[in-house]
């Protein structure tokens, strides 16, 4: 075990989520847990709280979990998934409001050094979509 944070990729599309996670997996050194999910329960575009909850638990690290989303329901359903966690775990999960691919790529490049969720959030502040 290491102290690296885990990463969850949530997209409206299952294919996009899988592809981004695959790319991250190839680019990082396997010291980071990466989980992904996308689409609604019917397999169409959307997001699903149960899948997001499962992805958080599969990427779980006691150092925390960073969730990357592609706007709208992926963000709001991720918030619900976090609310379902225990109080202790809840504090260790953050949704990043960066562009999905760029934010996640930047994160794996710094997270493999064991940086905390807070430190990574500070680094990624400049990528916030709220700055648009």
């Amino acid at each position, binding site marked *: 075990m290491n102290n690296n944070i885990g990463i969850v990729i949530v997209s409206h599309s299952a294919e996009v989520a899988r592809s981004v996670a695959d790319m991250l997996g190839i680019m990082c050194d396997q010291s980071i847990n990466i989980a992904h999910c996308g*689409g*609604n*329960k*019917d397999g*169409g*575009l*959307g*997001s*699903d*709280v*149960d899948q997001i909850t499962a992805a958080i638990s599969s990427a779980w690290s006691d150092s925390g979990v960073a969730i990357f989303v592609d*706007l*709208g*329901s992926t963000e*709001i*359903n991720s*918030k*619900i998934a976090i609310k379902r966690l225990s109080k202790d775990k809840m504090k260790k999960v953050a949704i990043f409001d960066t562009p999905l691919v760029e934010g996640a790529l930047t994160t794996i490049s710094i997270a493999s050094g064991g940086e905390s969720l807070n430190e990574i959030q500070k680094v990624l502040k400049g990528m916030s979509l709220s700055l648009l």
Partner: protein
Amino acid sequence: MKPFFVSEDKLRFMVKHTAETVISFEVELNELDSAIGDGDHGTNMSRGCKTLLGAIDQIEYDSLRDVLIFIGKTLISSIGGASGALYGTLFLTMGENIDENPTTETFIDAFDQGINETMILGSSHVNQKTILDVIVPVLDAIKKQPDSFLDIAQVASIASNRTIAMKAEKGRASYLGDRSIGHLDPGAHSSDIIIRSICEVLCDYE
């Protein structure tokens, strides 16, 4: 307007009637959402309501509290869009905060808490062209305790139509800026449909 004492059969009928009505508006809601969103609000709402219809006869419940919690959880896990999280949170929070034998006062209190939680989740407030622009005026109307549930239904429809002139500040529609003006908000419209369906059933009690 009488207090919110509804028999189990009536409650079940209310849920079914509302779900069926929302499903019947699937195409219209999709069309509205195509104009300013991603075109799936009707499909999403319909999926949630079909799940609700499929399960409502199977569940056992003793109170409005149980039904609201059941509706909230079902919508959150079945709609698959932001509307599922928002409507689901509204119903779930109402259920969690309502007492076993609600009065008009405790119902208003629970509705208030449900709206609050929905606002927090969506980081939103009124006048941003969302479901809040219908449910907040509806809560205000209930607080005034009008003579008939039909008055509340009317408030919902008027409030929904007011979103046409609003500029969207939340969701995908917000990226359109001023171009979102002139379109009825699909979420406000589905809220109107839900409120009207509930009032249609409740006014039989008057």
